């Protein structure tokens, strides 16, 4: 992977939402929803973006798709910059990045039949012409997501949540995308259905060589299908590493806290839990220094003043923490 560029590169992506107020409707404050996020995804790879609600993970997905315009930073698809090109020129490239949304009920137009929902991207990108060819392609998509073919004549409200999510996945597959952004794609489903959809996604990844950006707050699900994980906190990535490293020897105290909150299916398991106190600070007024210092059990003076950069702490392992070791609760501040 030395001279081959990754499928998707995101560099310093920012999205600030202005808040207007006052007598003249001037900008009075900003929500720093995403504040300098960088990562890349290789072809066929799954990168998970995890974090608490409100940390900006969905905003990252929407900014990549240009459903919202990023404030700053760069996004490259196969080396081509896509964050600043006009939307007219972006349209053909949309074929390559698709999205599956969280809510299977609001992500399908209630007044369109499944066949028409799936035909829309095919027609938009000129991938199928004529009724017979479109029907044929739609039927194949139904097979791909393991739905009965005759379901394409029905309306979305006739399906269960899991089935509707399959339709959403089929729509994302329709244009033959290389990258699918799953924005909390399984969070709204029951546990058993969740497992089916996760298995479907990983099967599809193997069959079609898809890359996935899997946005989730659920580390237990992430562990099942991801290659690498990026942990976000308050609009920034605090730790980025492969799955094995993350679950075995994560570095950042926030990641530790998240991991310790994952339920373990063993009632007798003895675990050292990292309990965080307080709430996530407001992204309107992020704390100085390390944005996590208000809740970090290991925070010390430096954290309050100096913002830690994302730095390499191991092979393919980056973390944004001033501490060199955060071993099981013991703090070893590094003299510098």
């Amino acid at each position, binding site marked *: 992977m030395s001279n081959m560029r990754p499928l998707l590169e995101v560099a310093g992506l920012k999205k600030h939402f202005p808040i207007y107020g006052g007598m003249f409707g001037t900008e009075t404050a900003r929500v720093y929803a995403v504040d300098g996020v960088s990562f890349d995804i290789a072809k066929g790879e799954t990168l998970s973006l995890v974090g608490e609600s409100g940390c900006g993970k969905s905003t990252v997905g929407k900014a990549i798709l240009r459903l919202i315009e990023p404030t700053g930073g760069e996004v490259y698809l196969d080396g081509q910059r896509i964050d600043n090109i006009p939307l007219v020129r972006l349209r053909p490239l949309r074929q390559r990045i698709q999205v599956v949304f969280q*809510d299977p009920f609001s992500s*399908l137009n209630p007044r369109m039949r499944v066949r028409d929902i799936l035909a829309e991207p095919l027609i938009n990108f000129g991938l199928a012409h004529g009724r017979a060819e479109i029907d044929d392609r739609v039927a194949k998509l139904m097979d791909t997501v393991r739905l009965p073919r005759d379901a394409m004549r029905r309306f979305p409200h006739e399906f269960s949540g899991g089935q509707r999510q399959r339709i959403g996945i089929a729509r994302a597959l329709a*244009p033959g995308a290389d990258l699918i952004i799953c924005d909390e794609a399984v969070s709204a489903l029951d546990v058993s259905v969740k497992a089916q959809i996760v298995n479907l996604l990983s099967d599809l990844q193997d069959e079609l060589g898809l890359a996935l950006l899997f946005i989730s707050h659920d580390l237990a699900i992430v562990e099942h299908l991801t290659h690498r994980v990026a942990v976000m906190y308050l609009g920034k990535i605090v730790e980025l590493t492969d799955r094995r490293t993350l679950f075995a020897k994560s570095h950042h105290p926030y990641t530790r806290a998240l991991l310790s909150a994952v339920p373990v299916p063993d009632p007798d398991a003895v675990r050292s839990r990292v309990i965080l106190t307080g709430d996530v600070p407001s992204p309107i007024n992020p704390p100085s220094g390390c944005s996590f210092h208000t809740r970090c059990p290991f925070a010390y003076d430096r954290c309050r003043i100096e913002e830690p950069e994302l730095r390499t702490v191991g092979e393919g392992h980056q973390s944004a923490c001033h501490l060199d070791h955060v071993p099981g609760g013991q703090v070893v501040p590094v003299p510098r």
Partner: protein
Amino acid sequence: MSAISPEIAAAPALPDVLPPVKLRGKVGTFVNRYPTIAVGGVLLAAMVLIAIFAPLLFTVDPTALAPAKRTREPSALYWFGTDMLGRDIYSRVTYGARVSLLVGFSVALLASVVGTFIGVVSGFMRALDSVIMRVMDGLMSIPPILLAIALMALTRGSVQNVIIAISVAEFPRVSRLIRGVVLSLREQPYVEAAVASGTRVPKIIWRHILPNTLAPLMVQATYICASAMITEAILSFIGAGTPPIIPSWGNIMAEGRALWQVKPFIVFFPAVYLSITVLAVNLLGDGLRDALDPRLAKRL
């Protein structure tokens, strides 16, 4: 096997009172589920039939003068009596349904089309939004009846001009409603998914936005229809509406106004027709609002 076993003998007798007979069949279930739609729809359909088949419903020429037979009380010959020019009020009221319904439906259609267009433009072109909406606020700040009177004062009295004048007074409300619906629909994940699937804006509006504005629009249109009929009657009543040569409910009431205390039936019958029609349209609107409410739609 000599006697009947006690269990069978003790079987309870059929109840004497049967449950009340419910209306059966598809029509029956519809009436039970949406009584207001059924009542409103039947009344409105009856009024439409009256308007269409007015010449066949035992009417005479509604403009034929017969001064010798003026102000007759209702009787077997003159069902609703005659007015001060001897014209048959039953015929005039029956023909008057044409004007009211034509104005009501035309205004509902015209105001919906114009209002939807402006609402969609406003919801999609954020730069124009505040300008358009301030203009709509301005139009809405004038009471609709005054605006219609002012517009009628500028033009010649004709049914067409009445329709246009009332539509101008009504469409800002539609544009407000549609703009709000469009703004909320734009944020729907299925619209975002359509954008991500490369769907162009006109097709998004046509396939994803407009079909989903239909339910609130239909409800609003029925209310506009009802209020347009009243406005038309008021305009005719004060002489700013349809020309007196065309019988409309407002005209008939205006002409009977002077004789109100001695010959109240001249005003009474057109007023009853107007009330029933407006009630029917409002019932239909209420019923549609309930039937199209997504929270109740699951009952299907």
